[in-house]
């Protein structure tokens, strides 16, 4: 990579115009990333509070704190908000929006106004969802299974579904924007196999966002019509088929799992190479594995339905495909590990988060094999084993990667450094708290504790207490970054252009970058991750 050109007089994107109006009408991808950051941090806080209340309640098997109806509304609130208003937007809309154009040497995303519109749509969806929560909540679970959601559920199902429906269009807009940006706005010389793996992961994620989200939108619209007008195709009393709902829902929601993990994989690829100071092992196969996960991810939805009475043959096929989609994930773990060999490793906070990701994603992925195995899934389906498994992927994987990526690019985003030691402590605290919270849930699931259980038999008590204690540690871990990032934003040392001595076009810009990123369009002449190799 060429060294950064001398900074021109252009003001950085933060201090250019400080009015609120300029922020709310901005089309600068970096400012939109900040708008998203504020929004999803708020949603994360709401959803995490719900989780904290649930864990507190589960301290006792007999439900001393609240009635079942409230508990059910809490886990619905937690699921809906975490999935659609934190996990799905998290890395793409914050880190992706900020870093993608910088990484490919572009001045902005392809459609800057659409980018701003997607934020407003997201906020509108969020507002409707918050209204549904304030107006009493919903007790369907985030999966909205029919005919419960269409006929029997209490609360504001219509508003909740409408909120998710609207937010879906923001996902589509973001995905579309990224696909077009990556195709058309790459800097001269930046060929497909010179792209950083984070870009590959955003590209694959965008394909899913664009192709899966519309199906969710249609499904939610059908639920709203069925609930509102009493006509539809899901409720058996109307002649409909409840399994049709599950097929449509998981046709979106299983790929959505990959929306929630692929960007994390991309971030971790960046972190591992930077902090090992070594080229990624097997770059091409990493890129292709990312893409193949996105495509195979569309073919495995039926593994959520092994005990739903779908056909036995469907079960056999979906199980096989689910094992197949594990192969590229296993390749990734192998390649990250192999990248460390012969590196020159430093242990800054972003790398600690990446290591945490590696451990937790591996556990989450391996326990996924249990659930892909037909006979074993029959036993574990809809138990806490599943809850533990997907939290290892979603929180252990995606949230760790998000935290890692956020720490990594924070100096670029804010122009300031964060304190080294507290960040390392936070990474370790989150890792320990997470395992303490969720590992006992694997055992609970194996012993048969069903998910979404408010009251539970006393033999599950001890493990639930351990899990709640872990959640407290995890909560402390999540508060720590809020404190030191706030401190860093106000008092942190100014960051140099490239504090981690990383490769990549984003590090050639000033920290924070000017409004349109690059004075001159950069020209790329070499492969990514051009770190000094072994024996060099």
């Amino acid at each position, binding site marked *: 990579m060429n060294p950064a050109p001398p900074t021109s007089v252009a003001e950085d994107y933060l201090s250019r115009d400080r009015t609120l109006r300029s922020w709310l009408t901005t089309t600068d991808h970096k400012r939109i990333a900040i708008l998203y950051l504020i929004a999803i941090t708020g949603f994360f806080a709401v959803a995490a509070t719900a989780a904290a209340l649930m864990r507190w309640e589960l301290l006792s098997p007999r439900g001393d704190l609240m009635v079942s109806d409230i508990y059910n509304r809490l886990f619905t609130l937690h699921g809906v908000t975490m999935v659609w208003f934190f996990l799905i937007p998290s890395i793409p809309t914050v880190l992706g929006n900020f870093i993608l154009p910088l990484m490919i040497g572009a001045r902005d995303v392809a459609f800057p106004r659409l980018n701003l519109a997607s934020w407003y749509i997201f906020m509108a969806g969020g507002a409707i969802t918050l209204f549904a929560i304030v107006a009493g909540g919903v007790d369907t679970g985030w999966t909205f299974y029919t005919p419960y959601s269409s006929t029997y*559920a209490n609360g504001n199902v219509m508003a909740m579904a409408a909120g998710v429906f609207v937010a879906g269009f923001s996902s589509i807009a973001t995905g579309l924007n990224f696909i077009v940006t990556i195709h058309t706005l790459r800097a001269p010389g930046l060929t497909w196999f010179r792209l950083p793996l984070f870009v590959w992961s955003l590209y694959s994620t965008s394909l899913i966002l664009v192709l899966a989200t519309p199906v969710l939108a249609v499904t939610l619209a059908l639920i709203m019509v069925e609930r509102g007008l009493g006509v539809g195709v899901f409720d058996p009393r109307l002649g409909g088929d409840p399994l049709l709902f599950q097929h449509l829902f998981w046709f979106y929601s299983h790929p959505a799992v990959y929306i929630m993990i692929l960007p994390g994989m991309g971030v971790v690829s960046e972190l591992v190479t930077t902090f090992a100071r070594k080229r990624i092992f097997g770059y091409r196969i990493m890129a292709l594995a990312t893409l193949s996960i996105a495509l195979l991810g569309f073919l495995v939805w039926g593994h959520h339905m092994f005990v739903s009475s779908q056909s036995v043959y469907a079960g056999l096929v979906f199980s096989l495909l689910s094992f197949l989609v594990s192969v590229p994930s296993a390749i990734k773990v192998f390649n990250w590990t192999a990248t460390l060999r*012969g590196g020159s490793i430093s242990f800054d906070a972003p790398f600690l988060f990446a290591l945490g990701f590696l451990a937790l994603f591996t556990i989450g992925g391996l326990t996924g094999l249990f659930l892909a195995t037909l006979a*074993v899934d029959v036993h574990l389906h809809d138990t806490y084993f599943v809850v533990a498994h997907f939290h290892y992927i979603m929180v252990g994987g995606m949230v760790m990667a998000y935290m890692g990526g956020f720490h990594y690019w924070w100096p670029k985003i804010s122009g300031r450094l964060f304190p080294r030691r507290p960040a390392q402590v936070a990474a370790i605290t989150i890792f320990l708290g997470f395992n303490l919270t969720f590992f006992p849930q694997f055992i609970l699931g194996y012993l048969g504790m069903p998910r979404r259980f408010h009251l539970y038999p006393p033999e599950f008590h001890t493990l639930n207490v351990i899990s709640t204690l872990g959640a407290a540690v995890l909560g402390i871990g999540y508060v720590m970054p809020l404190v030191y990032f706030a401190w860093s934003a106000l008092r942190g040392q100014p960051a140099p252009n490239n504090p981690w001595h990383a490769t990549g076009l984003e590090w050639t810009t000033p920290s924070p970058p000017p409004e349109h990123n690059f004075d001159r369009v950069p020209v790329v002449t070499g492969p990514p991750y051009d770190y000094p190799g072994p024996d060099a």
Partner: protein
Amino acid sequence: MNSLAPCVLGMIDGSMAGASRIGPAVDAIFWSLTITCTTVALAVGAYIAWCLVRYRRGSAAPRPRPRWPEWWWETIWIAATSVIFLAFYWAGARVYLRMEEPPPGAVPVDVVGRQWMWDIRHADGRREFNALHVPVGQPIQLRLSSEDVIHSFAVPAFRLKQDLVPGKTTVAWFEAMRPGRYPIYCDQYCGASHSEMNGEIVAETPADFSAWAAQTRDGNSSLARGRRLFVLDGCAGCHRGADRRRAPSLDGLYGRTVDLADGGHVPADDEYLRESIASPGRRIVAGYAATMPSYDGTLGVTDIADLVVYLRQLKAAAPRVASSR
């Protein structure tokens, strides 16, 4: 904390293991997976730890080139993981197929799920709520249906789980191997009291089971209700008596093969009886017009189940009429 030890030990010594016929096969796969995955995770973890120490920044360890080209390693890894995955796929699929196929001689039991209870009927019409008495060593075929939303009949000790989907009848089977009381949970979220939709399977020795069966009386049994409904809801008006012009007699129908108006044949099993009450127009008996109204909506899932219990034991009267032309 003192309940942790038995809890974890329970996983290993298997207080639940071996409680059902299928259990050991499931556990064998579960524990092979656990051992394989733990080994892989520990190996990867140990290798990472070794790298972190040896190649930490500033260490003097030499940084050698890999001995083989990258694609070599990738091929080995892909081949190894694929073989392991396929082995587990095959093992899981085989046991799953066994789960899906009730063994011959399985005794049918009807389970109706509703918010928030299990309503269970034995083949002889005896009815239980939130409990199911079975003799050890006797395969039981569960026929599951729901009156409202989706439920899931789960017996962790038996490694058994099957959703109850409104609008259809799903099937599962088990065979208890040891006497004991085994919890039933609803595993599919079904509303406010989802976590209280519990029950238990009471597995008894054949002698104890017979004693229990002798004690329980046939008061509010399914059979009695079915007999009442047959008259009250007007079935008897057309299907009973000497006049055979409007509707076929149902005596001795159960288990026979019925000739259909479209030229096909269908065994008169539970599924056919249920369908003929809920949507009579779908498969008409040869020689009759589609005049019977649908009772879907008029009769609940429970009512239909009771009627089926009643119809099942109607003995063949005089000559065969149901399939006559």
